[in-house]
Structure formats: C-alpha cells, structure tokens
C-alpha cells in the first residue's frame, strides 16, 4: 500500500511567527523524497503536520485522500522519527521496541531485532543512558521496522558515525526495493544522501522554493568555467547562482537548462561545462540574497 500526500496552502504559526507559509505540494506514494532547507526553514514543522504531531493553522493536508489529524486510519500509517525521539528516557530499549511493535500494523519484528543487533543496541539499557548515536540507531531501527507506508526520518542519522550512516542508507534502499513505500528524508548531509532521493523538495523561510525530480534538478545546474571575460560574456542574461574567481579564470554556477545551442556555443568558445552537486545547488538557492529562482 502506498499513500499519496497532498498539501494545499499550508500555514503553521507559532504565535505571531509563521513557520510554514502557503506551502502546496503533491507527493505521489512510493518514492523517496529529500526535504531540504536551512535551519528554521520549516522542515520539521511541515513534517510534524504530516505526522499529526501538530495541527496546521491554515490550509489543507490530505494523506490517501483523508485529513490525517486525529484520524486513526491514517496516523498509524505515518511513522515520523526525529533525532531525539519521543520515547520516555526511562524506557529500556526493549520496552521502546515492544511499544512500537504493539502499535504499527505492519511491524517487522525480525527486521527490528536484526537492526538492534546490527547497531549493537543493548536491549536492557535505558534510553537515557544511550549515546546520541545509539539513540539515532534506535530511531532508525524503529522507523524501518515499522514498515509504515509513509516513513519520515528527520535528521535522525546525525548522531550516527559514518559507517552506521552508510549502513542505514543501504538498509533503507534495500527495504525500499523489497517493500516499496514513501520515505521522506530531511537532512543537512545532502551529498551523502542525495543519491537516494527521487524527488527533492526545498523549503526556504517557510515557503516552498522548489519541488523537482532529483535528476531534472541536477541538470538545471551547470558550472561554466573558463577565462573570466569569456565566461562573463557567455553567462550574461543567465540565472547565475554564484561565482568563483581565481586569477584570470572564473567559474559560474548557472541555474536553468542551457539548451543544445548554448552548449555548442560554450564548447566552441572553449568553456568547460560541468555538473553541480545537489548540495551546491541547494546552498546557492537558499543563501540569503541568492540567485533568482
């Protein structure tokens, strides 16, 4: 079972401050989405609404065609895992797993036990005595074993060391291939995870900056490198996200497809065209006073 998500004009306010403002998006089920944004861009707030952790101030949310807030048929289909988790610190690891097993309809106990063993989580230890990385690993184990049709990881792997993180990416991909469902990954470690994303959503200052397929987004960014004068002439009128200069050489990051004619022109002028990492595109798109979108 996969569930579509539809958000229309979503707004969430904390007092006078708007954390999310007029966000509309459609996320068809059965894909891995990357939710990117700077600190305070509204990512966690948006995800909290999807997971019914809070109710929106305005707008509409539909999951599988139904409003999710306090909807028993939907809330047990959306597993939202945050870095610090929400299980009481006094619980033992085995209690947290037992609680999750009793709640999630598609719970995979074998997978949960395998992941607990894999991440060497001591079942009898209380959560308060686990290291940050172990708490993250527990969140990962619960999130994957929940087999919830919509599984959301919000920066959950930040506390994990690099080998554990890479192992998580592998587990997630393997499980996604075997049991297709929707994953939403919110992260600042874009370079590490970007290969998993099928679609990218970028929020900036509470608003939706873009939602695009990852490949198509990557193709929108081009770096043009060459002698400064030639690069300036070539890039005139293009949407420039950023530029770097070293001596007489210059490199500009251009947002938007160049088209075959421009590409031929660049090659004819001896300019070098290259891909732009997703992280660089993200940085350029979201930096203050960054390029036009």
């Amino acid at each position, binding site marked *: *079972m996969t569930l579509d998500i539809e958000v229309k004009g979503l707004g969430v306010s904390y007092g006078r401050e708007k954390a999310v403002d007029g966000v509309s998006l459609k996320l068809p089920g059965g894909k891995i989405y990357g939710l990117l944004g700077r600190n305070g861009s509204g990512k966690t707030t948006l995800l*909290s609404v999807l*997971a*019914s*952790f*809070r*109710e929106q101030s305005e707008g509409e949310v539909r999951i599988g065609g139904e409003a999710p807030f*306090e*909807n*028993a048929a939907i*809330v*047990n*289909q*959306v*597993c*939202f*895992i945050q870095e*610090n*988790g*929400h*299980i*009481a*610190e*006094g*619980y033992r690891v085995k*209690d947290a797993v*037992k*609680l*999750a097993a*009793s*709640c*999630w*309809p*598609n*719970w995979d106990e074998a997978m949960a036990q395998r992941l607990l063993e894999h991440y060497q989580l001591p079942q009898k230890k209380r959560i308060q005595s686990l290291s940050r990385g172990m708490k993250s690993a527990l969140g990962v184990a619960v999130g994957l074993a*929940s*087999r*919830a*049709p919509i599984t959301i990881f919000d920066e959950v792997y930040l506390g994990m060391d690099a080998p554990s993180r890479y192992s998580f990416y592998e587990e997630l991909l393997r499980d996604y291939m075997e*049991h*297709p*469902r929707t994953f939403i990954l919110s992260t600042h470690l874009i370079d590490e995870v970007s290969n998993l994303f099928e679609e990218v959503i970028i929020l900036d200052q509470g608003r939706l900056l873009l939602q695009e397929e990852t490949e198509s987004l990557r193709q929108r960014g081009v770096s043009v490198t060459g002698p400064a004068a030639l690069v300036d002439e070539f890039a005139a009128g293009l949407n420039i996200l950023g530029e770097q200069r070293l001596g007489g050489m210059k490199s500009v990051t251009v947002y938007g497809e160049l088209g075959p004619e421009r590409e031929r022109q660049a090659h004819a002028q001896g300019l070098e065209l290259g891909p732009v990492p997703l992280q660089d595109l993200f940085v350029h798109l979201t930096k203050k006073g960054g390029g036009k979108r």
Partner: protein
Amino acid sequence: MIGAPQTKKHPAVNVALQLWSTHRWTLLWYWLIFVLAMIVICIFMYSAGPEKIESLDESYWLESGGFSPKIFLLVIGILMTPVSLASFVSNGVTRKHFVAGSTMLMAALALLSSLVFAAGSLLESLVVDWIGFTVKMGHPPFFRVLVEQFFLFAGYSGTGWLIGSAFYRYHWRVGVIISVLSFVPITIMEILADSAGIVKLLELSVTPPAWNFGLSAVLLAVITAALVALNYYMLRKVSIKRKLI
C-alpha cells in the same frame, strides 16, 4: 507492496495494556509497602490496649490510611501526559485513543486500589470484633467503601492527570492556575464521600450532605467523568512537544 497488516488490539486497549505493563510493578511495590506499614501501625495501635482503641470512634485504617494512596495516584496522574503522550502519538496512536487507554488504566488502578483498601477496612473490622473490644469503631459496609474509594482514587488520578496535561499544553503560569482549580472537583468529591483527604488537610469544616449513598455515588461518577472529559478537551488538539521527561 507492504504485507497485509497484522491483527492488532484496539489502539485504546493497547495503550491501556502498555501503560499497565509500565506501572504494574510500581503499583505492586507501593501496595506491598503500604499494607505492611499499615499492619505494623495497627499492631502497635491495638497492642496499646482497649483504652486507646475505645477512644477511637472511626476505623483507623479508613481514617489514617486513605490519604497516601490518593497522593500516589495523584502523582501517577500528573506524570501520565508528560511521560507517555508523545511516546504513543509518535507510534501512530491518536490523542483520543491515548485518553481512552489512560482512562482504562486509571480506572483499573483505582479499582485495584479500592479493592485493597476496602479489604483492609473489612479485615480491620473483623480483627476488632475478634479481639472483642467493647466499643466498635464505625465501619461502613464493604461495598460502600469500595464504591466511594474507587471514585475518590479515580478522582485523584484524574486531578493529577489534569495538572500534568495543563503544564504540557499551556504556559506554566496557566498550568499553576489550572492546578489550583483542579482541586475543586476532588474537594467536592471528598465532601460527598465524607472522606479524609484534602478536606482534612485544608482543615475545612464542611458537613456532608445528608443524601443517600446512591445519589452520592452518581454524583461521584459524574465528577469523575467530567475530569476525564476535561483531560480529553485539553489533549485533543495538543501539539506533541520535544521530550520533557
């Protein structure tokens, strides 16, 4: 495709069972210590001789033992929302089912506590008769003690729950105001049941209404239900906060 969902218990029942599994040992240890302490105190009291006992006109067990379990259940109630709400909602349980499950647990705790309490009172009455003191202490009927104590215990845990929910949902200043107000219903309940507790603690001089037991029991049930309803009202749309405890 994700496999067919496994058959699970109703979410509210599951909440109650999971909470029971968390609290059962605390409850067991509490009652074990309480009963032992009361037995020791009663032995000292009764061994003091008939003069001492005959100066009492009420059950020592009911008069002196009632306050401690109420405070115990009040504390369990206070911790209910801050400790458990986020754990359940983050595992796909609605607030409504959390409230329903918590209510079941509190009803079970109140029932068990009132059973132990009423049984203790009955035992005390039998012991006093058996050792043949001439002046009998006032022992209300077992069923009456059971019903009144059930609602009082449920009322105390409901009051605690209201306090915990208020601090979870609102700013602490509002929490303080609600905490003070939340003792009004339980005070009325104690007056109705003519019970030792907050009325005695505050040294209030109130004459219990001369209603029959049935009417008092109905009123106690209505106030208990109102406490649960108030809790649901506070929690039904509450935002889940970062871990508090």
